[in-house]
């Protein structure tokens, strides 16, 4: 069989990169699609590793009812019957869907249609609530509609890019690389980063404003006042009030004081902004995830509206989304606060007429946090969760856990057999995964791309839209859900966007309403709005019905008065202030090489290798104050829960704040679900939770011992009472567990054999014991192969590097010289130890890079790339390579 290439779209962040997936016999490989306008061939480390994630290990392949494998008929009948029964007894608002930006637009559309048009409730909310809803609300207030006015090209054209609350280098790497590449070619272009943390993104900035958490409105009001004072004026509605409110913050000194940034930095930023017409302000979760999220968005939009920097090349405010199809979800109306196709509940009659549906939701439903509160109270009695893991991702996640445990009926559609959420479902519906699904997604710059299947659906799995339609039919709604393909759903979605749309809604896919199935299959990336089908056909390629790259070029907005509105916003602090008991502000976020709750990225050893453990970043002064040491484990606690994570002491973390990544969960760590710690305070307008600020405390986790295990097979360490801390890190042909315990076991040998599952006394077993020093090391060999090894020491620093040992898990026998040094944990020649991985794309490790820098006199990231390929693919490790070069030079 020859290699078959399929053009599809990356399922990770909202950049929406085009991917060429190649299937050659059974081997899958992926590469960036150079024809895709969003990435032009680039991919980040996660995208590059997509082929690692398509394996079937851990997949949910069959329906499960009450813990037992079931037929589709039984499972779907059960869902339809339970929902039907609860609706009949308690009304439509007693049920809910909790869906996801991971769903394709077609999946989203039928889910929304079923809930809002047929069940008749607006209780469908999405995990986009957790990341994007403040931007949605801010856009609506300013523009009248949830619209991102610019495109990625603007980031390259701009003379100034301001990144607010966005670790773009890690979270949207391809967009970041586009910015960096443009700036490298033009030294006059500037990059400003506004973030309490000195992230990898901030490392590369011309100016970094490490503002105090929650002071974005203070800063942008200050900027608005500064601009007004310097003669910038606008006659847009709301300008006067917004500027008047902004002036209250005071002069630059006052702004600097309020934001906790030095005056010169603030002044430099204001001046740069004031003087640079072509400015794009990119904002992301650091802005959105706040109890003042919507106000923060409008504080930014105000500055762009006042300076008329919108709808112009290189000038616009730019919300970038976290999920691959957060935008598509917003477009179909998958949030409980909108109805459908960018229409609100005031359009209920129109939408019902379009659908011909028996019912219609006429008021907003429950937003994510409220929804789980309602489940806990028993008001919502049945919930269907699709493609998301709320027990990890919601704030106050332990309450969400209790809510699901108490819920009468929980259905979960997922592609994984075990997640924290899946493990609490009554009915499990096996959904197709990325490589098997077909439909469309919309990215952050309004580009709709086809996601195409290139692998067959395994086991009993089905497409989400197919599952939803089947349940709808079983609930008696055959008429509205008689779809035989994703294409058919897409056509209806497109038609709804165009339905009675005389220009009052920017979202308009009129040009796509009568795509044939084959046109749908071959659809090239297309940016909305799309008005003219004829032109699309004629072009046969990237449709250029009109230049849709920039909106509002004519300054006409989808508001009642046709104008954009400035919104007066008043600065306010986070909902819950720090206190004596909880003196630190806990911030959460993503890391470079993991995605959401790791169900996918944890399948890729090279991704897991970048940052293997959940961690907390702590400022050196705080570390001293609270007695936590770099590399040790700490307990991070809030009023709601606690987590045990590894300490990273870094001056890049703002004093008084902590950062814990959002990804780890009960499948991969004993206790690192940071959602369980996050306060459920929400923005009153958007309902988006305040993930970026929860009052917290940190204390040492008093481990009596630390250790790690490498094993060729997964182990059941959660059941081991002697282990109080564990993290599971998937490797290439092994599993790595970082472990620690509060008490020292009486007999290490017995305990270790239990951990490694080695019962027989005659097993080939190597052991090195130094009881007095608290050191224990053992390895289990079988026929010359290493099966597992365990290393224990009183301090983490006393443990050897894992990488050399990990490289013994090759599937080949361990040779005698390696065996002799196995329990030393490293080869006799230190030069042979590659150290931790830096470049995930090419698997280049730290010591390899250091040696090359030293031996070949490499003095730039480019030179390292030339020599080792490191950093030459996605480039997201470039800051780390630069740091290694700096470190080497400092040593000399």
């Amino acid at each position, binding site marked *: 069989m020859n290699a078959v290439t399929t053009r599809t779209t990356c399922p990770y962040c909202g950049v929406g990169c085009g991917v060429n997936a190649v299937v050659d016999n059974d081997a899958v490989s992926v590469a960036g699609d150079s024809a895709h306008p969003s990435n032009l061939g680039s991919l980040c480390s996660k995208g590059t590793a997509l082929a690692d994630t398509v394996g079937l290990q851990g997949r949910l392949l069959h329906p499960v009812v009450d813990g037992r494998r079931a037929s589709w008929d039984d499972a779907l009948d059960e869902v339809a019957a339970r929902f039907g029964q609860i609706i009949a007894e308690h009304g439509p608002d007693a049920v809910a869907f909790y869906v996801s930006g991971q769903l394709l637009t077609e999946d989203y559309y039928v889910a929304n249609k079923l809930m809002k048009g047929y069940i008749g409730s607006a209780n469908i909310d999405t995990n986009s609530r957790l990341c994007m809803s403040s931007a949605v609300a801010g856009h609506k207030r300013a523009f009248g509609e949830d619209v991102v006015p610019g495109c990625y090209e603007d980031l390259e054209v701009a003379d100034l890019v301001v990144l607010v609350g966005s670790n773009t280098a890690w979270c949207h790497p391809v967009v970041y690389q586009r910015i960096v590449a443009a700036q490298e070619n033009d030294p006059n272009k500037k990059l400003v980063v506004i973030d309490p943390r000195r992230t990898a993104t901030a490392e590369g900035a011309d100016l970094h404003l490490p503002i105090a958490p929650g002071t974005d409105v203070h800063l942008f009001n200050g900027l608005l006042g500064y601009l007004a004072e310097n003669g910038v004026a606008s006659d847009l509605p709301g300008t006067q009030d917004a500027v008047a409110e902004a002036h209250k913050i005071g002069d630059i000194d006052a702004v600097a004081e309020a934001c906790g940034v030095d005056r010169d930095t603030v002044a430099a930023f204001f001046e740069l902004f004031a003087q640079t017409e072509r400015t794009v302000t990119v904002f992301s979760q650091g802005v959105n995830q706040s109890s003042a999220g919507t106000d923060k968005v409008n504080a930014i939009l105000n500055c762009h509206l006042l300076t008329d920097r919108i709808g112009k090349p290189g000038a616009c405010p730019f919300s970038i989304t976290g999920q691959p199809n957060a935008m598509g979800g917003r477009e179909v109306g998958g949030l409980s606060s909108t109805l459908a196709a960018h229409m609100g509940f005031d359009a209920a009659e129109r939408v019902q007429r379009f659908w011909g549906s028996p019912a219609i939701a006429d008021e907003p439903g429950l937003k994510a946090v409220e929804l789980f509160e309602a489940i806990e109270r028993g008001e919502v009695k049945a919930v269907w969760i699709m493609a998301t893991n709320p027990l990890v991702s919601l704030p106050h996640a332990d309450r969400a856990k209790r809510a699901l445990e108490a819920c009468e009926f929980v259905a979960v559609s997922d592609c994984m057999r075990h997640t924290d959420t899946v493990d609490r479902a009554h009915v499990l519906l096996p959904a197709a995964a990325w490589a098997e699904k077909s439909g469309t997604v919309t990215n952050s710059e309004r580009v709709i791309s086809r996601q195409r299947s290139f692998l067959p659906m395994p086991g009993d799995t089905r497409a989400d839209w197919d599952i939803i339609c089947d349940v709808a039919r079983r609930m008696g709604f055959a008429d509205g859900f008689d779809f035989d393909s994703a294409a058919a759903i897409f056509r209806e979605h497109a038609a709804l966007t165009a339905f009675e749309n005389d220009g009052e809604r920017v979202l308009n896919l009129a040009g796509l309403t009568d795509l044939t199935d084959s046109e749908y299959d071959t659809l090239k990336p297309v940016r909305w709005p799309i008005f003219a089908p004829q032109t699309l056909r004629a072009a046969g390629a990237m449709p250029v019905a009109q230049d849709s790259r920039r909106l509002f070029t004519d300054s006409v907005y989808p508001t009642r008065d046709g104008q954009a509105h400035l919104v007066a916003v008043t600065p306010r602090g986070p909902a819950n202030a720090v206190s004596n008991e909880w003196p630190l502000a806990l911030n959460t976020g993503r890391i470079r090489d993991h995605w959401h709750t790791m169900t996918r990225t944890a399948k890729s050893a090279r991704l897991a290798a970048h940052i293997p453990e959940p961690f907390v970043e702590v400022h050196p002064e705080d570390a001293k104050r609270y007695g936590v040491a770099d590399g040790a484990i700490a307990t991070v606690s809030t009023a709601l829960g606690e987590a045990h994570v590894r300490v990273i002491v870094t001056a890049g973390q703002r004093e008084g704040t902590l950062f814990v990544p959002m990804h780890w969960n009960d499948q991969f760590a004993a206790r690192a679900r940071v959602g369980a710690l996050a306060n459920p305070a929400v923005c009153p307008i958007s309902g988006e939770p305040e993930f970026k600020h929860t009052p917290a405390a940190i204390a040492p986790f008093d481990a009596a011992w630390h250790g790690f295990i490498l094993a060729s097979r997964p182990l059941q360490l959660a059941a081991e009472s002697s282990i109080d801390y564990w993290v599971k890190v998937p490797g290439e042909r092994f599993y790595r567990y970082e472990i620690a315990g509060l008490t020292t076991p009486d007999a290490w040998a017995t305990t270790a054999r239990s951990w490694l599952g080695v019962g027989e006394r005659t097993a*080939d*077993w*190597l*052991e*090195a*014991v*130094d*009881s*007095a*020093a608290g*050191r224990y090391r053992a390895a289990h*060999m079988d026929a010359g192969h290493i099966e597992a090894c365990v290393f224990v*020491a009183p301090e983490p620093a*006393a443990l050897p590097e894992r990488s050399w040992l990990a490289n013994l898990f090759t599937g080949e026998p361990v040779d*005698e010289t390696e*065996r*002799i*040094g196995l*329990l*030393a944990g*490293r080869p*006799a020649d*230190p030069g042979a130890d590659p150290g931790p991985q830096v470049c995930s794309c090419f698997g280049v490790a730290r010591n390899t890079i250091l040696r090359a820098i030293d031996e070949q006199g490499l003095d730039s990231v480019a030179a390292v790339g030339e020599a080792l390929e490191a950093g030459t693919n996605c480039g997201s490790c470039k800051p780390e390579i630069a740091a290694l070069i700096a470190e080497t030079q400092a040593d000399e």
Partner: protein
Amino acid sequence: MSDNATQPKLDLVVIGNGMAGVRVIEDLLEAAPERYSITVFGAEPHASYNRIMLSPVLAGDKDFAEIETHGREWYVDNDIALYTGEAVVEIDRRRRMVVSESGREIGYDRLLLATGSTPFILPVPGHTLDGVISFRDIGDVHRMVEASEKGGKAVVIGGGLLGLEAGYGLHKRGMDVTIVHLMDTLMERQLDPTAADLLQYSLTQRGLSFRMGAKTAAILGDEAGRVTGLRFDDADDSEIDADIVVMAVGIRPNVELAKTAGLHCEKGIVVNDTMQTYDPRIYAVGECVEHRHSVYGLVAPLWDQASVCANHLAYRGHTQYEGSVTATQLKVTGIDVYSAGDFSDAEGSETLTFSDVRRGVYKRIVLRDDRIVGVVLYGDTRDGGWYFKLMREGADVSAFRDLLLFGQAYLPGAEPVDAEAA
């Protein structure tokens, strides 16, 4: 130091032509070649040979010529008068004369006693029978080799270093060998039970038999006065056949001559830190001495003692002998065993162990106050010398304690050391 070449030579008499006496002479020739006119008496008929290599000779791995260290020409070349096969029977301290068994009288200004030790013979009935052999000198080796040529059964009493080497040698020469040991584990003074078990297993694999925890009641013989077997002191008075019985149950310092001469002796000839006996003209080194209550049966202390003694004889000021930590290596082909120092789990000591049963490797390092005080290595003794050096130097190992068990290859800073033991 002044040049003594112009001064008249002093007479040095050395009693004992073994390794200790010869080593002192060597060191002395190096330090003060013109100071002494030297006479050596040896009770054995040979020039000097390396006694610690007797086991390989017995096992047939080496022949006698290979272990001879100093041929007669060496004595001639260095102007040393050598009397072999001639034991000294009297020391006349008043006249400063020694008298040999042939009546030869030689005067001395300085006298060095290097009389060594004698194998201990269990005083059980039958211990004088023909075929009861000790394992001490080349003569014993010849007797065993001769006996083995007829094949048959050999019983070795003593599961210590020498007993095992004797047993292994006889086994290699075709005898059916049983090692009889009073204790429950072999080489209990050098090995911990784990290593001892591994060793016993290996030797059993090679065809040796063992009677552990067995006390000998009597050696049995025929009417011709030849050994026929052994009876044990156990509940049923069990017996075992034997064509020869090798006694390897320890050594006794040879102190008779010194005692007769009125020198203070306890277990051995008591010496001070400059290796002088109670008569300051008389020095003593080697297995015959007792220093600070210790008697040594290994070669390394002997080198240390010889160096101090020679230094003092050369008037080179006071280096002092402060006792030795000792190391042992079993000379059985293919079985590497190394032990040094104190490896008991004494109060205040900390133990590091390594085991790889499949590869037959076991290591035990005992630390006190971050310093090595004892080492047992089984199966992989490459680092024995290095550990021993660290132990002797009292080196603080805390900086690399985690890698200590894995040896010198992991610590590139440390100088390589050759294995050194007896």
